[in-house]
């Protein structure tokens, strides 16, 4: 039988698993500590992170990512191709442009019954409507020249079938659907908007651009200004919700900072408790470590065995703690922190347990086997 004198890594791992099961009390104690750390971090820092996430989401929903280019005087001559130029900018998620409002729009007398025709503005748009627009009825325009009415405009026009022709002073426009225009398009909910014809798009009065990341809004706003194709660029006003972006940064920074400090503190305490638990395990098993050293276990093998046992216990504890923590946060806060937060927490907790187990492992490995063997 040939003996290389070095344990096989797989055999060492298998022995670590056996030790974890054989020394159940110590393993469960270490696992419980890790589970408690996960649970406490989740119901404190995790809950705070979930709240932060909610606050930031509501800030962003309020339009903090929206850049608006406005031709306030109506003489800037913003050409339609400006929309695609803005949409192609890095960091821009979506862009759309609107032309000037036409004269009063009168509902087709044939579709209105029992009430006097009412006028609503109609505007041509260039670009794509957002995919998440909420349809009340009908559909979005599928070809140039088709129109969609905001729900406010539909009510004023009496479009009970959510579709039908409307007429301006010089043309008839087919409305193919009614939508609740919200968010960036909220100001057009009382309008009928018409998909522009490719060769007949008017100069634009508004361009709306939504950025991917609110943190980059000032940079992108500068790029939007440069990307505009206009006869009089100086007459175009760029509006950004800088104050909301600043508020978002402040909220994010303060909540994030306090969460991180809390989490670091709890992880540190957890690592110390794991250290004490593993120290007591190592102390209780000192004869085993001494015997194993006498039988040929190297110091590194002893370290690996102790860390394997601690790591397995920590993994089990992290799973249990995360499940319990997620349930607790869901009940307490009504929402959860991000997946990356939870994955990071689980990894950090196991890492903290391993770091806390290094000193006991080294102590176990450096004990004099003869001294241990000679004490009955």
């Amino acid at each position: 039988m040939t003996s290389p004198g070095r344990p096989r890594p797989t055999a060492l791992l298998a022995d670590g698993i056996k030790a974890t099961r054989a020394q159940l009390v110590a393993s469960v104690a270490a696992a419980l500590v890790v589970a408690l750390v996960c649970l406490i971090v989740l119901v404190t820092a995790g809950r705070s992170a979930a709240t932060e996430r909610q606050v930031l989401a509501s800030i962003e929903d309020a339009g903090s990512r929206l850049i608006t280019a406005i031709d306030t005087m109506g003489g800037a001559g913003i050409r339609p191709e400006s929309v695609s130029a803005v949409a192609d900018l890095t960091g821009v998620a979506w862009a759309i442009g609107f032309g000037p409002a036409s004269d009063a729009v009168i509902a087709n007398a044939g579709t209105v019954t029992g009430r006097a025709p009412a006028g609503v503005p109609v505007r041509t748009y260039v670009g794509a409507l957002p995919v998440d627009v909420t349809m009340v009825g009908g559909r979005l325009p599928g070809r140039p020249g088709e129109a969609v009415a905001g729900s406010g405009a539909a009510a004023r026009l009496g479009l009970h079938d959510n579709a039908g022709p409307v007429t301006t002073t010089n043309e008839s426009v087919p409305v193919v659907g009614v939508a609740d225009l919200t968010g960036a398009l909220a100001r057009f909910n009382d309008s009928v908007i018409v998909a522009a014809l490719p060769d007949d798009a008017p100069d634009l009065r508004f361009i709306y651009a939504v950025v991917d990341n609110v943190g980059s809004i000032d940079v992108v706003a500068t790029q939007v200004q440069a990307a505009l194709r206009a006869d009089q660029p100086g007459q175009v006003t760029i509006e950004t919700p800088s104050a909301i972006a600043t508020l978002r940064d402040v909220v994010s920074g303060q909540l994030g900072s306090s969460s991180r400090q809390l989490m670091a503190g709890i992880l540190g305490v957890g690592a110390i408790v794991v250290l004490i638990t593993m120290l007591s395990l190592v102390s209780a098993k000192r004869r085993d470590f001494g015997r194993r050293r006498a039988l040929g276990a190297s110091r590194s093998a002893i370290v690996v065995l102790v860390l394997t046992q601690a790591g397995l216990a920590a993994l089990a504890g992290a799973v249990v703690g995360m499940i319990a923590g997620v349930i607790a946060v869901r009940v307490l806060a009504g929402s959860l922190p991000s997946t990356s937060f939870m994955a990071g927490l689980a990894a950090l907790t196991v890492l903290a347990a391993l770091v806390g187990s290094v000193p006991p492992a080294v102590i176990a490995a450096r004990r004099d086997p003869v001294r241990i063997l000679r004490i009955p």
Partner: protein
Amino acid sequence: MVTIEGVRLTARDLTFAYRRGAPVVLDRLNLECEPGSVTVLTGPSGAGKSTLLYLLALLLPASQGSVEWDGRSVESLPDGERSRLRAAHSGFVFQDAMLDPSRTVVDNVLESALFAGIDPQTARQRADELLAEFGISHRGDHRPGEISGGQAQRVALCRALVTNPDVVFGDEPTGNLDADSARIVWDALIRHAACGATVVVATHDESLAQAADHTIVIDLPDDGNDSIHGDGVVVTNGVGVGNGAGERP
């Protein structure tokens, strides 16, 4: 019968004290243990039998002098290399079995094979053979707390032999056993030596000394200091100084 190469153990001017300034336990000892032989270290308590055993087994570093395994000085090797040599070539039988109470008998036997890096299936097969040979195969799944002291020592013997080691060290391996159990252990060590292994045992048991190939008596000096006695220290079964002989210049 399995053929084992054995290891020639040599001590040259071996001197040891547990710490600087402490009384010298062993003083310039020279000895040689041949493969295929059983060498018994005997003498009164505190004379240094176990210390000499631990020095030969590379568990203690010498204060002066050297320990050689097959002519290679292993005294100054780093700890990792000494561990590797122990794992690959030696087995150890302790006085009180020293089993892990949380593991089964089979897992205890396989412990040596783990650190030797032996294929787990091969080791398990050898473990089963040894447990059967010593009449405790039916105890394989039991915990040490569920078997007798004699059975526990047989398990410890299986653990020492599971790697077919070239050298076996025993520190009072029969000290806590009744005569029948002691005979089983002793016969196993003699059989292992007959296969070619080097067997070194520290013991108080005079009857074991009688059955050994070589006996080294370590005596307390007259002045009360723990060291090898100067006169008549070495007895090689009355034949004179030879293999397994130790002497003091």
